[in-house]
């Protein structure tokens, strides 16, 4: 089976199916343009699908994602291609040739997402959607809201008994173990790079003992723990002993604003941590206690209100200090934070039940080392280029929160549409 995709130089290619890519694709499509949306994972949704709540309204991303997914599903102008990666781009504005590599999913469109294949297999793998906090089967749906609603077979399963069992269990003849990777050549007029971000590797921040102390976790992991269908069923459990953590420390700028790690301010982490402090009250009422260790709180413009609201809560403490290091209290398993409170120069060694590192945001694609003609700044984010027909949307362009990523995506869509319109005007 091969995938047939029709593309011309009137087509806009959107690379990345997170919130920015989805927005860019929908908006271009709803303006009547032909759009191809590529996603390297088996489902679109990206990092936003992994969040429990958004700030500042504290509503659930699943709600907004569902609306967007539906808009994509309803629109004939968008073609979504999952498990696809761009390997080469040549040409110029209005006339790009793109080489795409599509990995085999081993499940075709007959799939009804019944789950029989998953029940039939026994092999388990780390669950990427939950940052490896739990395991998933070798035949799996990436997450409950996945789009397309279609199972995937882990490539490591192919050739094993498990794969045969999965095929046997499928009543709809949806499993195709012979599926091969394929390479496609597309012609497109404009490209929107919405390749998004990845959390900074917390292991690189050696003094914070992320790899040595199980009770030091990252902010993205806490988001997964809060999900009622997540790895801990919505409870904040300490990885070391599975006890509920009610006294949680948040360390800001974990990897950001630091010339040893990421030089830039990741911009979202202050608000993300402030948001996460509200989870404690949500789960434990008056029993939850949060302590935020910060250099300065960057709750910009209207987010100030959110910050002031959090600051009023007596159960949430703020300590102005970049934590020097984290040691371990062997008896309780508590991480102990050491440093100096710079408001008054008080030295502290504070034990907490759980430590959440507000990890920084870095571009998920290293464009500087790809053979694509695109310029990036010193932090790896894509620079705007007036002459080019390639545009960055969302976190490929800068460290942005969801709101600003969507704004950035809309802006790139408009630029891409202009390229296409100029082209058709010239050809007419």
């Amino acid at each position, binding site marked *: 089976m091969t995938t047939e995709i029709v593309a011309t130089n009137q087509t806009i290619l959107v690379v990345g199916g997170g919130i920015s890519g989805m927005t860019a694709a929908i908006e271009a499509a709803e303006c009547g343009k032909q759009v191809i949306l590529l996603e390297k994972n088996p489902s679109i949704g990206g990092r936003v699908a992994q969040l429990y709540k958004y700030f500042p309204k504290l509503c659930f991303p699943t709600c907004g994602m569902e609306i967007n997914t539906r808009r994509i599903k309803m629109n004939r102008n968008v073609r979504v291609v999952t498990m696809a990666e761009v390997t080469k781009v040549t040409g110029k504005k209005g006339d790009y040739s793109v080489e795409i590599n599509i990995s085999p999913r081993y499940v075709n469109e007959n799939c009804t997402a019944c789950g029989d294949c998953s029940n039939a297999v026994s092999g388990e793998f780390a669950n990427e959607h939950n940052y490896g906090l739990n395991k998933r089967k070798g035949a799996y749906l990436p997450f409950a809201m996945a789009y397309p609603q279609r199972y995937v077979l882990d490539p490591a399963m192919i050739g094993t008994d498990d794969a045969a069992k999965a095929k046997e269990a499928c009543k709809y003849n949806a499993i195709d173990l012979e599926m091969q990777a394929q390479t496609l050549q597309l012609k497109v007029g404009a490209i929107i790079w919405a390749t998004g971000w990845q959390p900074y590797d917390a292991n690189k921040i050696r003094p914070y003992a992320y790899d040595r102390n199980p009770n030091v976790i990252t902010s993205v992991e806490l988001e997964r723990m809060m999900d009622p269908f997540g790895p801990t069923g919505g409870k904040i459990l300490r990885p070391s002993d599975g006890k509920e953590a009610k006294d949680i420390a948040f360390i800001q700028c974990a990897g950001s604003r630091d010339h*040893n790690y990421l030089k830039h301010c990741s911009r979202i982490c202050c608000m993300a941590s402030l948001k996460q402090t509200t989870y404690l009250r949500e789960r434990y009422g008056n029993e939850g206690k949060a302590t935020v260790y910060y250099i300065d709180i960057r709750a910009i413009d209207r987010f100030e209100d959110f910050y002031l609201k959090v600051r009023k809560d007596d159960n949430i403490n703020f300590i102005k200090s*970049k934590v020097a290091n984290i040691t371990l209290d062997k008896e309780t398993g508590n991480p102990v934070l*050491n*440093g*100096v409170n710079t408001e008054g120069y008080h030295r502290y060694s504070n034990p907490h039940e759980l430590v959440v590192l507000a990890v920084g945001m870095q571009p998920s694609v290293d464009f500087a080392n790809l053979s694509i003609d695109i310029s990036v700044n010193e932090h790896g984010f894509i620079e705007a280029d007036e002459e080019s027909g390639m545009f960055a949307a969302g976190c490929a362009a800068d460290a942005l929160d969801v709101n600003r990523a969507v704004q950035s995506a809309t802006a790139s869509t408009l630029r891409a549409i202009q390229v296409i319109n100029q082209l058709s005007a010239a050809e007419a």
Partner: protein
Amino acid sequence: MTATEKYRNNFLQEVIANVEEGEWVRMCMQCGVCSGSCPLGPHWEHPPQEIFMMIRANKRQEVLSSSSMWYCTSCYNCIARCPRGLPITHIMHGLAHYGRKLGVAPKELPTIKFSMLFWENLVQKGRVNELKLGLRLYFMNGFMNGIKTALKMQKIGLGMFLTKRMTPMEMLGGHGCKDAKGLQAILKKAQQIEDAKTVKQG
């Protein structure tokens, strides 16, 4: 005092002009990771990030006469962790040196005494004479203390002699570089240049 008193950062300007690596003081963002990382942190008067704030707050006398900079053991933990890349260890040494040059550094600190003994020992021959330096250190705090320390250390001294790490012959002159006189002339000249560079500020 006038209603619109000028923001006084004369001392910061002085530090930038006269202290080695002093221009970096402006870059400190007061995160406190240096103070938290310092192994001697609990023992000294002002940790680095506090010193930097004091410089900006024009606390000239307090900073230069402080013993804090003299506690630095050059472990470089602060430099390794500073998010802005400040050469904190070097700034500390620069401040210590500047305070001593102006004659306001505390007199009775063992680290200052050691530094001076080391320097005097070094410039005589252009090489450190470990035997003489060691003995002078023993007697740094009085004659009786010196005898006590010498007795306590005699085994180590003997061991060093037997493994040819130190010889009593060093007492008689000792080894040196080829042209000790020339070296002393160079150092003298350097001192003159250094003194001329120091910007006088009040």
